[in-house]
């Protein structure tokens, strides 16, 4: 797959002798929504954290647009065009919604080191455009600390889009949201991803969301990839059925 934005090969990670992730390989292409699923403790978070630089793999290769990013810090990986949202939202609570997005824009432009200019004067329209896209423009003046959870998720998405990423990493993007909101958020994500040709890798618990929004799905169990393919293929895969039926019932 030469047009892969993210390419993962033979990723390994063990914690004190316990293999958390073993020989995981996959790829995501531009404009594609790839869901990483698996039961609790399957190694999804470990896998994710090795992609975004928070955890160093024991071995394996992670390539972003052909460039090896293993060993880079999260902020360096962001600079290469990777946007992130978190399982538990991480926004700047004392800053307004617009300022949150502006922060990312300032950072992207390398303009945070100024001591005397007023923050907020620049990138207003860019921030508002992003907020408009996620439907948060009407709340731009409010502090993130007082927002509803679903709104925070959308702010995170706007932040994640601020550096014109080629790849979005979304860890449980709909956790803690109402079912209706979930589908809406991921539909929005899918629309934006396709429009901007962004590769999206996300983990998700809600199978409705996964099977309606993902282009492809990969399934992790006990650290090992057991299946991968289109939603229909994965749905039909007996291994997947065994894992899910076995672990949930």
């Amino acid at each position, binding site marked *: 797959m030469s047009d892969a934005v993210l390419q993962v090969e033979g990723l390994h990670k063990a914690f004190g002798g316990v293999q958390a992730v073993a020989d995981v390989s996959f790829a995501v292409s531009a404009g594609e929504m790839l869901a990483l699923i698996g039961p609790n403790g399957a190694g999804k978070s470990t896998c994710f954290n090795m992609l975004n630089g928070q955890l160093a793999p024991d071995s394996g290769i992670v390539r972003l647009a052909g460039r090896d990013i293993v060993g880079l810090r999260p902020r360096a990986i962001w600079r290469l065009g990777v946007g992130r949202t978190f399982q538990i939202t*991480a926004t700047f609570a*004392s800053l307004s919604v617009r300022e949150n997005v502006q922060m990312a824009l300032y950072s992207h432009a390398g303009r945070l080191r100024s001591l005397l*200019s007023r923050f907020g004067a620049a990138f207003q329209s860019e921030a508002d455009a992003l907020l408009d896209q996620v439907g948060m423009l009407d709340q731009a003046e409010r502090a993130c600390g007082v927002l509803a959870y679903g709104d925070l998720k959308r702010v995170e998405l706007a932040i994640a889009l601020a550096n014109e990423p080629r790849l979005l990493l979304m860890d449980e993007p709909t956790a803690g949201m109402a079912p209706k909101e979930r589908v809406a958020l991921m539909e929005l994500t899918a629309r934006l991803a396709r429009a901007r040709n962004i590769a999206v890798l996300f983990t998700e618990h809600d199978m409705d969301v996964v099977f309606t929004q993902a282009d492809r799905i990969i399934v992790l169990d006990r650290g090992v990839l057991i299946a991968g393919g289109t939603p229909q293929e994965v749905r039909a895969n007996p291994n997947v059925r065994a894992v899910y039926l076995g672990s949930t019932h």
Partner: protein
Amino acid sequence: MTLASFIIQLLNGLAAAASLFLVSAGLSLIFGVTRIVNFAHGSLYMLGLYGAYSLIEFFGRTPLGFWGAVLLAALAVGLVGILIEVLVLRRIYRAPELFQLLATFAVVLVIKDIALFAWGAEDLVGPRAPGLSMAVEIMGRRIPAYDLLLIAIGPVVLTLLWLLLTRTRWGALVRAATQDREMVGALGVDQAKLFTSVFFVGSVLAGLGGALQIPREPANLELDLAIIADAFVVTVVGGLGSIGGAFLAAIVIGVAKAFCIGIGTVTWFGFEISFSKLTLVVEFLIMALVLVVRPYGLLGKPQAAQRAASEPAPPLQVPSWTFALVWLALLALVPLVADRYATILLTDIVCFALFAVSLHFIMGPAGMVSFGHAAYFGIGAYAASLLLKRFGLPMEAALLLAPLIAGLFAIAYGWFCVRLSGVYLAMLTLAFAQISWSIVFQWDSVTGGSNGVFGVWPSAWLADKTVYYYLALVLCGAGILFLWRVLFSPFGYALRAGRDSPLRAEAIGIDLRGFQWAAFVLVGALAGLAGAVYAFSKGSISPSSISIAQSTDGLIMVLLGGVETLTGPVVGAAIFTWLRDAVARNTEFWRAVMGGVILLIVLLFPQGLVGGLKALVARWREQRA
């Protein structure tokens, strides 16, 4: 040291560690569960000593009288702890982080004067322990039998605490709360009861630590502050919330001190090195070393998010520049209408205001609490003094170079500090401040040692107090306005962002440590400016300008005014300095009065003075609308 003296000094260190462990274990418990930095813990220790003294006098010096008194004193101190928790702290748990520190500081002042009133100023030498007054011969040396008992008490209490924490429901709750306070609340546990009981147990430990010292230490009024710093050091070196860690750390520090004394003066390569002088600072050296290598202490675990305890910080309001300029103009008019002393008091206030604002910048918006901010104030003051007196620089040059030197120290200290977070960071700043203090204190030939530097007067054109006041107003006012301006710059926003969510900051490419380091240097330099201006206004400078007391004053000013507002620190500095000036006129019990006033403010305005006033104004507006 011979082998024999090595062993004996080891035993001495272990004996000294016993009480330190008890006090620190109590502190660690209280902090672990309530997240309160309890300054008054040392006062509880002191009350333990006084209480034991009086009870032994009352019961008589029999074994039963002695041990009964020790236990009863500990329990009584536990009740005092409950009183403090119920009457004061319970009312302010929802206040911004660290605000409770202000309340406990006030309690320290009050308890000190109560003790002075109840027991008088004279040191009270307690009796020896009946039946244990003799010495035991070990390797040809005599060691007090009581010390051997203390050595045994440490592990016994450790075991009892361990059983209490691991084998009881209460212990399970305490451990859970130490890990994650929110969760315990969510589990439906009565938090108030849990906190009160933890305060009781922690206070009993402090009281017991004190009472057990009665045969070794005269009850006196300096004990509270003498022990509190050490107890914090032990708690942090051991790892917050870790009782075993506190035990280990108490032993490490107790033994290290004993060895410093045992080694005494040695000559290496023709240099005389006095290890006994190191006892002044050895615990802080150990703390700095431990924290640099192990950011969570010897046995501590990474802390759960600190901020969870309180609401997220509210957004800062952009200061109104007209407002600031009007105030500056008003302040400039003061010398025309008020007397000479008003100008002098205001000069102090202006210096402390910049000091407090610089501390607020780092602990509020930047989210890095500093317990050792006096380091930069003091280094600035000393740099200015020494450049003038030892290097013969003109006063003006010394004044301008001093902040740069303070900034240089901040570069070095900050590099280590920004690698830590929360109370560990705060304690590392304290360690650096104390190390700086001890160097200033001991380096007679350069810094004038404990006396300090004299004759640090400004140039002739600034000699007049009014003119100097204007200089202070311009320099410190400019410093304050500059810091406020920076807070609303991209740099300042990045710091606030990093405080709100380090995870998100990193995820959008912000090099948070770099920004924090730069902030550290910036406020270090400005605190240094405040120190330099202060030094020339006094004509002399002494180690007290770099002491724990100076750092504490800064914290009190910031918290008193309100850490979540911009003008809070300025108001806090003014009120605190003015209060001290006004209250200290009555030399009798001014500390208690001061403590009472602060307590009143704490209870009436849990967001600090400015925060509280703003809330009042907001409510009034709502009612009118």
